[in-house]
């Protein structure tokens, strides 16, 4: 049986966001969080559940989710005094946690309104800590504060028994993950998406992580165009990987900026030949 999560409509999220935004100078924002259940109750049927097909997830489950993620955030903040690094570390660890959270193993996790409720209600303090008052992070969708992490873990998970299970999640840059996850024709297909991530990883070792952004953005266009005429994810795995690896190499060469240094090994940094 499926555990049914609470769902929050877009309009209800707007009301929550307006309520929190009143405290955008930081004062009394904790009080704003406490008043959130009141705000959502002012809308009719603001929080809904699926009518049938499972049982409502318990408050205990939601509390566990909340407390564990808060713990991860606190740990990230104390281990990394740099704010950006702390949040990046939190994203990685939270994605791993959400991947294995039992109650999110069903199609409830595909619903935008479920993640909207988590970001705007259950985990709202974390949303604010991570993104302050960026509205799209409260709404459901690929940019939701936590849905984006779950989507990444779904695609980049090499498997419970895999050696170095989370290497892709730990290695890919934020831009690379956005290029993969937020492109529906790629992010929806785990076979293709994870193969692109593997190709990115290989290319990043060849050319250097710092050089990958323009390569990735160009390569993705070529891959998407090819995917329109060839069902890439239906290819044998080794053929798919070979095509994608080559696509990154060809793109890097076409950009005309990169060549591997003469003394290079597979993981050498690139010699920048641009003027």
């Amino acid at each position, binding site marked *: *049986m*499926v555990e049914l999560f609470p769902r929050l409509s*877009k*309009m209800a999220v*707007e*009301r929550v966001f307006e309520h929190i935004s009143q405290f955008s100078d930081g004062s009394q924002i904790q009080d704003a969080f406490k008043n959130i259940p009141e705000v959502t109750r*002012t*809308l*009719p049927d603001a929080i809904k559940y*699926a*009518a*049938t*097909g*499972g049982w409502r997830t318990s408050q205990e489950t939601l509390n566990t989710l909340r407390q564990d993620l808060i713990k991860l955030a606190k740990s990230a903040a104390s281990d990394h005094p740099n704010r950006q690094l702390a949040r990046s570390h939190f994203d990685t660890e939270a994605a791993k946690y959400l991947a294995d959270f039992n109650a999110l193993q*069903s*199609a*409830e996790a*595909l*619903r*935008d309104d479920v993640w909207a409720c988590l970001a705007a209600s259950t985990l709202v303090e974390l949303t604010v800590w991570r993104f302050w008052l960026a*509205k*799209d992070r409260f*709404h*459901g*969708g*690929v*940019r939701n504060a936590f849905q984006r992490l779950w989507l990444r873990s779904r695609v980049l998970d090499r498997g419970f028994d895999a050696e170095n299970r989370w290497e892709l999640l730990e290695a890919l840059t934020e831009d690379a993950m956005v290029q993969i996850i*937020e*492109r*529906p*024709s790629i992010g*929806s*297909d*785990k*076979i293709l998406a994870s193969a692109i991530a593997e190709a990115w990883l290989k290319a990043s070792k060849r050319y250097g992580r710092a050089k990958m952004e323009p390569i990735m*953005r160009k390569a*993705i*266009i070529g891959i*998407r165009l090819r995917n*329109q*005429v*060839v*069902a*890439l*994810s*239906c*290819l044998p795995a080794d*053929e798919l990987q070979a095509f994608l690896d080559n696509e990154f190499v060809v793109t890097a060469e076409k950009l005309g900026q990169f060549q591997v240094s003469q003394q290079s090994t597979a993981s050498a940094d690139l010699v920048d030949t641009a003027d």
Partner: protein
Amino acid sequence: MSFSNAMPFLVLDDNAVSVTPWLVSIGGQDDVPDPRMLKGWDYAASVKVARRMEVDFRLASEQLAIPVELLRLSIVVMEGTGSGTIPRVLRHILKRQLDRENQVVDISLNLASDSLSQRLALKTLVLLEGVPDARSSFSPKLQGSKLWEDLQDVALEGDAPRFPIEAISFRQCFAGSIQESALWHLQWMTADMHRDISGSLRLYVNCDREDFIERITALDPLTMQTMLADVMGQLVSRLLYLPDLKEQIKGAERGSVARQAQQWFELAFPDQSHSQVLSLYEHKPGEFNAAILAAAEVGSLS
């Protein structure tokens, strides 16, 4: 067959690939042929889908200009689910090889309902297997080339329109603000035009205005045109200010806000460049809005 783009090689038509409509049954009830919505579905319901496919290899060989003895094909069925123009998740659920000795596939699949959300999209593809020697330079030459496809999209929870529209009480939702008496409100996030429309914007119509709701329900042409013109105007004007516009449009996915905005742009301003229309928007807004209003007569929000 329903390719959204013209393919750069020879493909198969519906004479070469014959299919029965998908039969979908829920909870052991009677099969429903070619359904648009599954009533009574929930996570606990069992869902079964079935169809028969047959490829006429003689005809396929002619259409692809590939000798019949060399022609190898495969049939792939993908299950898509989750909201969005492109389903949020796509899974491969069947692959069968075909040749001239095996031209028929009977498909019968039980689907796990607890992995389905909001819709079930069944995508069927016929792909080229191998890289055979062909008689024509227009023959498909790449392993996995898409030769034929169709899509059955079934709503699982209600019959949601493709464009996200919702009726709400503005007195309740915008209490105390000037929008309270508005007829409609397009809520959208301009930050990322590459998001799927269903997730990025929503057209709220004011159910406090019964006279207005009546006109929408009746699909009154002038009301729909006026409302659509506002939506089109907002998206197209935003499109004009995107940095690296040509690159952004090139990279815009089907179903994204940017792609829809570009389509409406082409409808309202055929044969005009973005810079020309931007100049029009900034210096002759009346002409810009009139063009949008005229285009809205032929556009659609459904």
